[in-house]
C-alpha cells in the first residue's frame, strides 16, 4: 500500500546522506591527518545513487552508496614549517573544492524539497479520494 511514499522516502534518505557527506567534506577541508594521527589527507567522500530495481515496469526508488574518492590527487601546498610537510616541504591537503561542494549541497537540498512536495501531493491525492465516500 502507498508505494509512492516509499519511493519518495528512499530519495529523502539518500539526499540526506548526500548532505551529510557534503557537510563532512566541508568540515574536513583542511584535514591533513587521519584518525590515527598519521599524516594522510582526508579523502573526499561522495554518494552515488542507483535505482532499486532494474525492471522498467515498476517505478523504483533509490539506494545510495558512500564512496571514497581515491583517484583525485591531493592539493599540495608548499609549507616547509608545517609538522605534516613531507621531505620537499609540501603539505598534502584534501582535494575538496568548496564551490563544488556548495553546488552539490544546493542540489541535494532542492532534491530533498522536491521529494517532500511529491509526498505531500500523494497525501493530498489520497485525501481527495476519501471524499468519494464522504
Amino acid at each position: 500500500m502507498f508505494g509512492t511514499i516509499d519511493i519518495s522516502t528512499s530519495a529523502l534518505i539518500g539526499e540526506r546522506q548526500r548532505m551529510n557527506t557534503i557537510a563532512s567534506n566541508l568540515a574536513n577541508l583542511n584535514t591533513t591527518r587521519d584518525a590515527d594521527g598519521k599524516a594522510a589527507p582526508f579523502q573526499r567522500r561522495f554518494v552515488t545513487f542507483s535505482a532499486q530495481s532494474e525492471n522498467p515496469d515498476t517505478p523504483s526508488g533509490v539506494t545510495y552508496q558512500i564512496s571514497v574518492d581515491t583517484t583525485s590527487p591531493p592539493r599540495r601546498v608548499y609549507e616547509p614549517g608545517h609538522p605534516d610537510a613531507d621531505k620537499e616541504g609540501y603539505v598534502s591537503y584534501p582535494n575538496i573544492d568548496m564551490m563544488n561542494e556548495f553546488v552539490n549541497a544546493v542540489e541535494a537540498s532542492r532534491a530533498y524539497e522536491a521529494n517532500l512536495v511529491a509526498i505531500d501531493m500523494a497525501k493530498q491525492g489520497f485525501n481527495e479520494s476519501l471524499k468519494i465516500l464522504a
Partner: protein
Amino acid sequence: MSASINGLGIPLPPTAPAASGVGPGSAPGSDTSLFGDLLAKSLGQVNGLEQSAQAAVERSFAGDDTTQIEAMTAMKKADLALRLMIQVRNKIMDAYSEIKQMQM
C-alpha cells in the same frame, strides 16, 4: 421471492398483477412479472456490486495490487445501487398499497 443482501432480509412485495395496469407501458393482460423481474434484476446487480466492493476492500488491505481508489469507487457504486433499489422498492410499495385501496 425473498432474496437477501448481507443476511438482511429486505421483504419484497408480491408481484402485482399487470392486469391492474401498474407495469409501465405494459399492455393490459401482458406478462405478469414485469416489476418482479425489474426488482429481481436490480437486486442481483446490487448484490454483485456489493460483493465486488467487498472483494476490492479485502484485496486492498491484504496487500494486493488494488489501489485505494478502486476500492472506494466500488464501495460508492454499491452504495448508489443500493439506494436506487431502495427507492424503487419504496415506489413499488406505495403503488401497491395505492392499488390495494382502490375500490373495485
